[in-house]
C-alpha cells in the first residue's frame, strides 16, 4: 500500500509524560480509580461466594473485616472511589447538554441532580442494610 514509506514522523513521547504537569497526574489518578472500583467489586463477589459456603466461612470473612489491614485497604479504596464519583458526576453536564427552549440548563444543575441522587441512593442503601 506504500503506507510505510509515506508514514509521518511521530515525535516520541516518553512513557512518563503524565508526570510532567499536575492536570496530567490528576488525569492518571482518575484513570487508576478504576483499579479500586474493580477490586472492590471482586471483594463483593467473594463476600457473596462466602454466603454460599455457609455461616462459618461467611462469619470468618466478616470477622476479617475488623483487621487493621482490611480497614486500611478500605480507607484507601474509599478515597479513590470517592475521586471516581466526584470526577464522574462533574463530567455529566459535558455529556448531558440539556436545553429548555433556547436556553441551556445550567451545568451546575445537571451535576447537582446526580449529586442529590447519590445522597438519596446512599441513604436508602444504608437504611436497607441497617435493617430499618
Amino acid at each position, binding site marked *: 500500500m506504500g503506507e510505510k514509506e509515506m508514514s509521518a514522523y511521530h515525535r516520541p513521547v516518553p512513557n512518563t509524560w503524565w508526570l510532567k504537569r499536575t492536570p496530567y497526574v490528576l488525569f492518571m489518578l482518575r484513570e487508576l480509580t478504576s*483499579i479500586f*472500583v474493580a477490586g472492590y467489586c471482586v471483594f463483593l463477589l467473594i463476600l457473596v461466594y462466602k454466603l454460599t459456603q455457609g455461616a462459618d466461612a461467611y462469619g470468618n470473612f466478616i470477622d476479617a473485616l475488623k483487621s487493621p489491614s482490611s480497614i486500611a485497604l478500605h480507607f484507601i479504596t474509599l478515597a479513590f472511589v470517592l475521586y*471516581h464519583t466526584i470526577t464522574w458526576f462533574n463530567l455529566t453536564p459535558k455529556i448531558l447538554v440539556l436545553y429548555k427552549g433556547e436556553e441551556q440548563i445550567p451545568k451546575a444543575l445537571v451535576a447537582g441532580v446526580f449529586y442529590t441522587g447519590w445522597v438519596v441512593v*446512599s441513604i436508602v442503601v444504608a437504611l436497607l442494610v441497617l435493617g430499618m
Partner: protein
Amino acid sequence: MAKSNEPIWWSLFSAGGMVAAMLLPILIIITGILVPFGLGGNDLLNFERIHTAVSQNYPVKLILFIVITLPLFHWAHRFRFTLVDVGLKSVSTLISVLCYGSAITGTIVSVIIFLRI
C-alpha cells in the same frame, strides 16, 4: 466508516461508571467503617439476615449482580486506555483481549456464584 464494537464497550463503561459512582462509596463505608467499628449494631452483616435477603429475593440478587459485574467493564475499558497511554500501544489488541476478557470472565464467575446461592 469501518464497523466497530466500540459503542458496546463504551456503553458498558458508562453504565458501570455510573453504578460505581452511585453505590460503591456507601458499600465501602459499610464494610470498611460501620462493620469493623461496630457502628450500626454489632452484627450488622449477620449471616442469616444477609443470606435470606440475597437468596430469597430476586430483585436484590439482580441488583447485587449488576453492582458487581457492570463496574468490571468500567475498569476494563478505562484501564485498557490507561495502559495504551503509558506506552503499550504496540500491544493494544492483546491488552483489549485481556481487559475485556477479565471482565467477561468475572461476569461468568458471578453468574455461577449467583445461581448457586
